[in-house]
């Protein structure tokens, strides 16, 4: 069909968007998500609040470093939970799956592989990790298949999974604690050796800053090429400077946490550095779990925004009928979301058992609640169709900050559960409230 192409329309071309007076218009012209800003604000309130209550301990490099390591598994799983919830499903089984996959990976490296490869074989960690990811993918595919093709609601399928996989974890481990993990595998969990160190951390920080600046510039170039509206220059510069400061600040904090003296002595010995009388401060830097979580966030964010699969997941959440009529294979797409979730559970399980240097049958208990809460606090709507990967990671940071802060304040475990439960319900209530208001 021949379409007479008119020249692109009038004067809005290449003009920077002028804020329309109000603060709202100002923020909108920068295209920064206001919800994200709100979440950062909430996080700052929590941090400052706990810091005051704990007399300055909360914001110490030591606590922040530990917080960052503990946050990683929740963040990793939350990025997958976003897609599951966006497609109008839920996965209640991730905690039990983490227990099952973690136990399986622990048994393989502690009891099965040593029989043939011996202890601490250089390939052990790769084999174990791949088996873990595969197991996660299979479990996810199985559950997703029942949801999409058999038609059992995901709530029920994964509620069943919550019991089944926990039971499997128990029978696999016979209730034991399986330890120790392969020495290379342990690096996945962070700890004194599982970190980038000072120089490496600065290099990663530098790369991140370069990526931020490159991203902003190339986005502007693309808009100019197609003649789309531009963000105001001050906003672009502000985003670049703000982003880089945040990254470099985080690296600085991670580099301000030093190895404990006994470990530092060992490391000094290994590197042949003489131990000085006044002691030696070796910065830990960014831990591998955090690096993995950031990598997962980037990959999942990319999948959600820049790949067909992500677009299909969002369209199913927005209008399943429209997705179907658009020719999308909606059932297989749903199966894939559960598979991705399973793989991410595998990654989180690896990080967790590596950090604990052991697997127990109770591993991951209740973490489904943290993961779901992280996604919801991060702006994922349980009605489906809405959610962002970076938001979920921020949500995970909020949840882990709450938990870590409560531990620091010596809040009893039952009370911690009460708080997490209330926060989960409150987050959904806020979500429902705002969406109802914006519908009017």
């Amino acid at each position, binding site marked *: *069909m021949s379409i007479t192409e008119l020249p692109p329309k009038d004067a809005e071309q290449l003009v920077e968007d002028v804020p329309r007076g109000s603060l709202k218009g100002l923020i909108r012209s920068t295209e920064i998500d206001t919800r994200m800003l709100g979440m950062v604000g909430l996080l700052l309130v929590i941090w400052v609040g706990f810091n005051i209550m704990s007399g300055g301990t909360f914001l110490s490099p030591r606590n922040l470093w530990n917080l960052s390591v503990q946050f990683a598994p929740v963040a990793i799983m939350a990025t997958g939970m976003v897609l599951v919830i966006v497609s109008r499903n839920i996965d209640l089984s991730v905690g039990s799956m983490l227990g099952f996959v973690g136990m399986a990976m622990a048994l393989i490296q502690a009891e099965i592989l040593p029989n043939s490869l011996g202890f601490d074989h250089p390939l052990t960690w790769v084999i174990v990790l791949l088996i873990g990811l595969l197991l996660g993918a299979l479990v996810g595919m199985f559950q997703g298949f029942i949801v999409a093709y058999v038609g059992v609601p995901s709530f029920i399928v994964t509620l069943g999974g919550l019991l089944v996989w926990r039971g499997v974890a128990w029978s696999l481990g016979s209730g034991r604690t399986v330890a120790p993990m392969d020495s290379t595998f342990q690096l996945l969990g962070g700890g004194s050796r599982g970190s980038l160190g000072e120089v490496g951390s600065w290099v990663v920080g530098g790369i991140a800053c370069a990526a931020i600046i490159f991203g902003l510039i190339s986005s502007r170039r693309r808009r100019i090429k197609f003649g789309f509206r531009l963000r105001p220059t001050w906003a672009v510069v502000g985003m670049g400077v703000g982003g880089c400061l945040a990254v470099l600040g985080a690296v600085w904090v991670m580099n301000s946490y030093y190895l404990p003296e006994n470990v530092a002595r060992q490391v000094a010995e290994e590197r042949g550095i003489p131990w000085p009388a006044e002691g030696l401060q070796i910065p830990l830097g960014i831990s591998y779990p955090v690096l993995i979580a950031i990598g997962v966030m980037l990959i999942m964010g990319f999948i959600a925004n820049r790949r067909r699969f992500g677009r299909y997941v969002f369209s199913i959440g927005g209008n399943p009928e429209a997705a179907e009529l658009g*020719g999308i294979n909606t059932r297989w797409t749903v199966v894939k979301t559960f598979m991705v979730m399973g793989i991410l559970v595998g990654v989180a399980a690896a990080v967790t058992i590596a950090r604990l240097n052991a697997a127990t049958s109770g591993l991951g208990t209740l973490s489904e609640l943290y993961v779901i809460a992280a996604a919801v606090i991060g702006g994922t709507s349980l009605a489906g169709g809405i959610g962002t990967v970076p938001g979920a990671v921020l949500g995970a940071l909020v949840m882990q900050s709450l938990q870590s802060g409560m531990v620091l304040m010596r809040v009893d475990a039952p009370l911690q559960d009460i708080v997490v439960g209330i926060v989960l319900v409150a987050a959904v209530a806020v979500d429902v409230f705002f969406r109802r208001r914006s519908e009017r």
Partner: protein
Amino acid sequence: MNDRATPLVEMRDMNVSFGGVHAVENVNFDLVPGEIHALVGGNGAGKSTLVKTLAGAQRADSGQIYVNGEPVSIENPRDAKALGIETIYQNLALAENIDAPGNMFLGRELTTGMGNLDDSAMEDATRKIMARLNPKFENFTRPVAFLSGGQRQSVAIARAVHFNARILVMDEPTAALGPSETEQVRNLIRRLKTEGIGIILISHDIHDVFDLADRTTVMLQGRVVGTVAKGEVTMDEILAMIIIGKAPQDLTQSEIAEIRG
């Protein structure tokens, strides 16, 4: 009845039933290039179900569809689109949370060489087609949930005409629109017709039908009452067919008078 050209579409002996209810019963229907063939009837007459079998959104229990004289099997919406059949659904079938370009290319996204979504190219294409269909359209980056009824309709229409449709099914295309937007859609339908596209138009608006359609098929309770050509019948006769369910030659003067009320 019609021997102008090989029909673009021919549907023979179509049957669809839900439970014990015959939604579509032994229906024959055809469409030639450059023709507007209206499908009218009351609620539950089976119009939407019939066109859904053509769009791949509904399986027929029996019957055969021919496109350009060739028997085809349309199992799902992808099959229909591959045959050049595009459909504008009554409820528009838009993903509310996705922006206009995303909806326009839903299921047929443009990608870069690496297989990544090419959002800029999709937005660019959407801007070009909207400049033609609805020059006032501006919201290219907001979810369509924020758009007005007319703008949403524009997105649904743009999606159907962008992909070089040869057969266009329009299920109540003006139901949600104001007067000026309705006129725009009518003009668009006329223009598409001159480009040789065959259009199946479902409408409750008898003026739309009388004004635009070359032929009109009336359905009642899943069956075809009759097919009439433009100029053969009056508007009242069409109304009588819809309500009473008799072909025009079988209608009595008193029945027509009753309709005229």
